[in-house]
């Protein structure tokens, strides 16, 4: 292996020496003008370049350009500009003479940058052979956008972005071409300004007082969307292979804005104010209906108890008879209040967000800079919850040594203050804010009096308004992303580059459950927790790039390099329980009765050798080969290193006249590649011993600290590998007024890293092993059209369409793995989904996200029992009659079956941009069709027996015929079709033409915007779009679960008004 390790860079280096240095040539000049083909207006900022050489220039405001010192002879002049199709002209440059060229560019259907960042360098759009989507940052930054993930939603085919919930800055699940892993991370790799970042949570977890703690917020909240210049998404294996081991889930490349020298210094100010409120409220039983319901049930109870004998001592009613009476106790009726409280509305609010961006940029020919400052304060639509961000960014570039050396620095530093509330992703017995809002008796008022909250008094029911206001849960992250780059032209065409990157985040969490809260008292008279977490990534990258036009026909673009990353994480936690006062909160832990603290640390390293060669023949054929050799410390000895190749090719059928007819552009692409997924935690390959409570034993009641084997270790642990095939056709019609691409892919993941049971005895029941196979296949269609292009009106529209099918092909020794824990009271040990191995007889395969449970047939109108399908086969349900059973006898495990599929049949995004005079209008529609969602909220709160515990329930249950005492049973009854169409955003922008502004400002624009204006869906829950969690719960180790809706934080509808001014 050592030989191979050094062979790759040696080969790369060898390539450079094989290319002879070019000889001295005589030169000439080229001048000309570029105009818009439809309006004949001059075009500024068009890049005019001599193909295959460093000679390039931007056109001035009058569309003119001049290139000096161009080598004499036949040259190809290329003109490119964002939003226009590129144009190539053959010209002849005479030594010492001046050649003129007139170029007219036709507007293209999509606004696309002509040069694309593809990882460790850039490529001309035409030369790209892999599957790459780009998102225009300017078009996507509309409405309230907190992070880059929100910008790519529905704007790139095959990229599925789901926010965990409606919290400000909520975490997201990004799936590029479906997930490729079952128990591993499905997160794509993020690369900011060329430096890969580890997108781990930067803040420690919350305290799990209400089931699982709130989900971490998005670590990418540190980047201000207004600083983002471009987003590139690498989807297929040939494009992502350059990122090797971390690329199996795709790569998202983010480039930030840089300073420009053209047009002198500029100052921009952008500000908006937004108001948000929940788009939908839980349909709980109102106070009046609740009273009526209780009033109906009381006579049943009285009738039952009136017949009870008085046999208890003292002639009292027989308690056995009394306790088993049906209906509701009159006592419940007598305790109802006189208020009419919608508790769900009581914990939500209209939330205000304001955001201010100030940036200035400028520079000289040699030195350019851009600095920006952002302040954002976003309230959540739930009480006492929000996000505040203060962020600064500085970027500077400098050219030295006659442009042969280029230096660059990017520094982003931000502080994010998160206010969390206690809410449940999955609830335990104690509930958070939303569980209690669903539970609380609607006839009670929020406050008993001005200073006292109503508290139901029961140990598991709390006033949710009080919970939100009394419990403090603050998260904070100070994060700095910094990188410095030095680039030097060594010989013509050969450039060396060194980049050093640092990503440091200091996260913290301060939590206090006060004595004033009944929950705080239950936890032991006040509970305080102070938690800190430091993440640090250091990256060193060295690259050699060789770009050369060889003769007229051949172009070569080679990158070779080395990358080293080291990731460290340190956490420290202190917890105190039992305080005498709430005054100290978490600021004086030593005042607590009992203290506990813990620390943890981990470290991992990744070392890579990488190379990519792109060869082009006359702009007709392109071939790209990629080799990356990665080593990770996380894997077992002997399995640390792996080779990740990629190969792709494209053929431009319209270049060279192979295809004519309607196509202005036609290109086919094929690609193949293999990548890895290292998303496991460090030390999983090692057998380790740990201490902690689980190892402690109190001999003589004195706790003796102990150790226990913790991790079984797996000396064979290796990379999870994904092999992907990609075929695509890109086309343009009517001079590229209609353009698009159709892609088909097959993605096979093998050696799946799965948490599987191991033969016992072993230190733990399971360990991570490489077993199993998963296949994703999909079709992606992107269409862009220029619907109108005439003076005063431009209308561009674009559609992204994706369909994807996943299939589990092999689960090793397992028939199935359970996933998707069902939440709620009485739902322990209930799982909503199974990851199923192919059927051993029929060979039928199942996708990830397959709902599995009893098939619901209806409610028996006479008994009110739920009826399920059953099979009377031996060993199955004993009282299965005519294929029907009730909860009284089953349903038995053998009666469970596939009852739904959480994956959509297809998804569509439709974006439009209309520029009409001084107005710009854009809107984004998003649809997802065919997926099922398990409405866990409805399962738990459609049970009228909640009333027995003086809890509320959902209004539809009033009339659903189910008996008062019937338990909540997971079944197909609660798996609903959740197709939807959402107007994600609509924005109208107006260019102000006020004299006092236009005198000083270059432009001033006012805009109004609406997010999530409407959703059309048949789904009965709050929102059909639910996160697919990989929960960090030990019983559910990262197994994929999709489409489970449990009391998620409400998604807001937001209206925004803003102003952009540039000076």
């Amino acid at each position, binding site marked *: 292996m050592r030989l191979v390790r050094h062979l790759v860079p040696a080969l790369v280096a060898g390539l450079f020496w094989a290319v002879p240095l070019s000889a001295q040539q005589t030169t000439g000049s080229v001048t000309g003008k570029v105009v818009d083909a439809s309006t004949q207006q001059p075009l500024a900022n068009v890049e005019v370049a001599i193909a295959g050489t460093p000679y390039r220039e931007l056109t001035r405001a009058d569309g003119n350009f001049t290139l000096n010192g161009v080598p004499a002879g036949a040259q190809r002049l290329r003109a490119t500009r964002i939003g226009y199709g590129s144009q190539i002209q053959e010209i002849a440059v005479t030594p010492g003479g001046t050649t003129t060229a007139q170029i007219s560019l036709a507007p293209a259907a999509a606004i696309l940058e002509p040069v694309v960042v593809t990882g460790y360098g850039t490529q001309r759009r035409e030369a790209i052979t892999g599957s790459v989507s780009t998102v225009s940052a300017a078009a996507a930054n509309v409405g309230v956008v907190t992070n880059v993930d929100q910008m790519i939603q529905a704007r790139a085919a095959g990229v599925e972005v789901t926010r965990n919930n409606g919290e400000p800055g909520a975490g997201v699940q990004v799936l590029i071409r479906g997930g490729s892993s079952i128990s591993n991370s499905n997160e794509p790799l993020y690369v900011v300004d060329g430096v890969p970042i580890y997108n781990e949570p930067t803040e420690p977890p919350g305290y799990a007082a209400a089931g699982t703690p709130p989900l971490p917020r998005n670590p990418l909240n540190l980047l201000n969307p207004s600083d983002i210049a471009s987003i590139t998404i690498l989807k297929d294996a040939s494009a992502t292979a350059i990122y090797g081991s971390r690329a199996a889930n795709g790569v998202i490349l983010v480039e930030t804005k840089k300073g420009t020298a053209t047009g002198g210094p500029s100052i921009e100010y952008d500000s908006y104010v937004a108001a948000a409120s929940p788009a939908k409220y839980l349909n709980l039983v109102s106070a009046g209906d609740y009273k009526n319901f209780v009033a109906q049930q009381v006579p049943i109870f009285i009738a039952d108890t009136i017949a009870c004998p008085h046999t208890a001592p003292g002639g009292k009613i027989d308690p056995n008879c009394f306790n088993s009476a049906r209906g509701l106790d009159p006592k419940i009726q007598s305790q109802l209040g006189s208020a009419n409280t919608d508790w769900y509305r009581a914990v939500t609010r209209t939330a205000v967000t304001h955001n201010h961006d100030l940036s200035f940029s400028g520079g000289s020919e040699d030195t350019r800079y851009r600095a920006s400052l952002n302040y954002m304060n976003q309230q959540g639509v739930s009480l006492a919850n929000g996000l505040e961000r203060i962020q600064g960014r500085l970027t500077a570039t400098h050219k030295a040594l006659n442009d042969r050396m280029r230096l660059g620095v990017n520094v982003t530093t931000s502080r994010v203050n998160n206010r969390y509330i206690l809410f449940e992703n999955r609830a335990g017995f104690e509930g958070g804010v939303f569980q209690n809002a669903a539970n609380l008796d609607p006839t009670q008022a929020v406050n008993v009096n001005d200073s006292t909250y109503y508290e139901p008094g029961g140990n598991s029911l709390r006033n949710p308004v009080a919970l939100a206001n009394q419990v403090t849960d603050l998260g904070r992250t100070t994060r700095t992303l910094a990188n410095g780059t030095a680039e*030097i032209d060594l010989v013509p065409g050969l450039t060396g580059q060194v980049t050093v990157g640092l990503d440091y985040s200091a996260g913290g969490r301060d939590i206090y459950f006060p004595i004033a809260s009944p929950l705080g008292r239950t936890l032991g008279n006040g509970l305080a927790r102070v938690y800190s977490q430091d993440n640090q990534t250091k990256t060193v990258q060295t690259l050699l790039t060789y770009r050369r036009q060889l003769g007229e026909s051949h172009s070569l673009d080679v990158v070779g390099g080395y990358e080293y990353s080291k990731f460290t994480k340190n956490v420290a936690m202190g917890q105190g329980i039992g305080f005498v006062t709430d005054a100290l909160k978490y600021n004086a832990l030593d005042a607590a009765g009992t203290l506990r603290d813990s620390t943890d640390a981990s470290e991992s390293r990744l070392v890579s050798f990488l190379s990519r060669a792109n060869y082009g023949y006359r702009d007709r054929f392109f071939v790209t080969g990629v080799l990356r050799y990665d080593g990770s410390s996380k894997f077992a000895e002997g399995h640390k290193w792996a080779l990740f190749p990629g190969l792709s090719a494209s053929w431009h059928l319209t270049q060279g006249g192979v295809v004519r007819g309607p196509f202005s552009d036609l290109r086919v692409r094929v690609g193949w590649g293999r990548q890895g997924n290292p998303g496991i935690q460090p030390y999983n390959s090692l057998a*380790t011993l740990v201490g902690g409570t689980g190892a402690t034993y109190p001999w003589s009641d004195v706790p003796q600290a102990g150790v226990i084997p913790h991790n079984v270790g797996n000396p064979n642990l290796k990379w999870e590998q994904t092999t992907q095939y990609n075929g695509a056709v890109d086309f343009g019609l009517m001079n590229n007024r209609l353009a698009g691409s159709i892609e088909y892919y097959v993605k096979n993941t093998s050696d799946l890293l799965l948490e599987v049971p191991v033969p016992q005895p072993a230190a733990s029941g399971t360990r991570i092993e490489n077993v199993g196979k998963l296949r994703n296949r999909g079709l992606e269609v992107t269409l862009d059209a220029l619907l109108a292009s005439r003076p005063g009106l431009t209308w561009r529209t674009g559609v992204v369409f994706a369909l994807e099918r996943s299939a589990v092909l092999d689960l090793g020794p397992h028939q199935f793995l359970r996933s998707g824990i069902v939440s709620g009271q009485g739902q322990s*040990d*209930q799982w909503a989904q199974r990851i199923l191995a192919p059927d051993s007889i029929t060979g039928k395969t199942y996708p990830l996200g397959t709902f599995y449970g009893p098939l619901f047939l209806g409610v028996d109108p006479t008994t009110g029992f739920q009826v399920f399908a059953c099979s009377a086969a031996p060993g199955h349900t004993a009282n299965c009659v005519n294929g029907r059973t009730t909860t009284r006898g089953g349903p038995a495990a053998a009666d469970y079956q596939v009852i739904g599929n959480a994956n959509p049949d297809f998804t569509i995004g439709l974006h439009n941009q209309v520029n009409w005079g001084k107005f710009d209008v854009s809107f984004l529609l998003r649809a997802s069709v065919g997926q099922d969602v398990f409405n866990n909220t409805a399962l*738990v709160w459609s049970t009228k027996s909640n009333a027995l515990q003086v809890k509320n329930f959902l209004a539809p249950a009033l009339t659903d015929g189910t008996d008062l005492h019937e338990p909540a049973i997971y079944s197909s009854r609660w798996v609903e079709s959740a197709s939807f169409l959402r107007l994600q955003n609509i924005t109208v922008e107006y260019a102000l033409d006020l004299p006092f502004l236009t005198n000083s400002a270059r432009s001033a624009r006012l805009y109004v915007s609406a997010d999530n204006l409407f959703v059309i869906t048949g789904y009965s829950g709050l929102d059909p779009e639910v996160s697919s969690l990989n929960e960090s719960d030990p019983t559910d180790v990262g197994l994929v679960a999709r489409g489970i809706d449990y009391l998620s934080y409400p998604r807001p509808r937001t209206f925004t008004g803003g102003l952009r001014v540039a000076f």
Partner: protein
Amino acid sequence: MKRLFVTTSIGGLGLCALLLVPLQGCTDLNETPISSITPSNFFHTEGEVLAALAGVYAGLRNTASEGEYWGVSEVSTDEMVVPTRGSDWYDNGTWLETHRQTWSANSPATLSFVNNVWNTAYAGIARANVLVEALQSTTVPNQAAIEGEARFLRAFYYYLLMDTFGGVPIATTTELKARARATRDSTFKFIESELLAIRPNLPKQWGDTTLLGTKVGRITKGAVNALLANMYINARVFKNEGAGSGISATTYNTCLSVLVSGGKDACQAAIDVADSIINSGVYQLAPAFTDNFSPDNATSPENIFVIKFAAADGLGFNMVMRTLHYNQFTPSPWNGFATLEQTYNAFDPLDRRRKMFLVDTQVNVETGRPATDRKGNPLVFTTTIANVTSATEGEGARIYKWPADPKHVQQNNGNDFAWFRLAEIYLIKAEAELAGGTGSSTPLALLRLVRARAFPGGDTLSAVTNGVILRERLFELNSEGKRRQDLIRHGAFTACWQFKDVTTGTCPRPAALVLMPIPQTQIDANALITQNPGY
């Protein structure tokens, strides 16, 4: 020009240097954990060895949990039921599946509770194997006794597996590999030989070290003998492969004529080890029955082998949470486990032990103030449960054998849980004598000895049969995790009882149920494991 040349050269050289440096080093990917230990750098000092021993003991805590050996051995019997109370406690039907014995290899209760029994026992075995292996290459004070404790605990974990599943794969090294099941008889012999081998190395009592007090909760000769006594009385069940191959599901499985170590009759062997305990001078019956379960039960002279619990985070006993009503304790208990009416009524009203159940009007057990149900009515527990699939919050008598600890930390109470106490040893001796073994006192005398504190007004028991012994065990050892084992030995496990009757399933249940199924997940993990017959 010269200046440009110089700067270019320096810049170029600098870049070259940066490019080349990483190729030399920085390909080192060795992994050394910084917040955990690897076995190779541990076990050098007495402290480290004791820490590893504490870890082996710590595995005991799980065995007495609701979804583990204790829960499986109780809820599958007539001692306990977990009724579905409205939306509470349905839990995928696991509790009623366990009570009605409708489990299969892939059913929800098997995949959770029964799987936990397997994993918890084997995790304990794995912990012991690491320590026993390490002790071969280190020297510490008290080494023989420490090794004895580790091997006892390993044997005990194997005993739980043998009791639940029959023969199991036996491993005494840390090597991780698939192993076939040993026969139940070989598993029995392995456990027996381990216990006999280590018994000489263990003290009668741990009271003489300065480090630890008198009731330290470490393994003694008495614990070894108690486990042996239990194994011998169950020898016919434990040494046969299942119903139809030596075990009767419907008649008494006597220890008589089953041969154990040294060719001794199992009944006689049970009497002999019981006598060793009785005559050791270490143990005596506690004056009051309740002394064995109170928060300070570490001082009980009767408890022989206990799981030590402490009122500290993660170290406590949470029985009160399983049984009490939401409003009877803080944090709020779960209002789940109850006993059957037929079981409650089986107690003689004069039997003081019946007070272990809470019935009638209830108080908050911490404050002593009257407790209310969720509606605000006075909380009343009734002995009846009208409908086990839709019970109300007050139905069912509650087990309150281990009272709440005033010093509890959240749900952690300091009551120890005894796996073996002297009263059971008397009952084992009586049962072995009744079966035909020869002992120093009659079965009736032994039972009366145990019953004396329960009937201070005078005991009317006049004759002993197998049925009487099984009932006495129900009264004395109720909720102590012994019921499944006792019912199997007495041929009554698959019989009918409340909520497990003809209306809810075929009853009596199949004889094969005297062994639990091996959870399918374990067979998936180890292809050499075969399922028990009948599943």
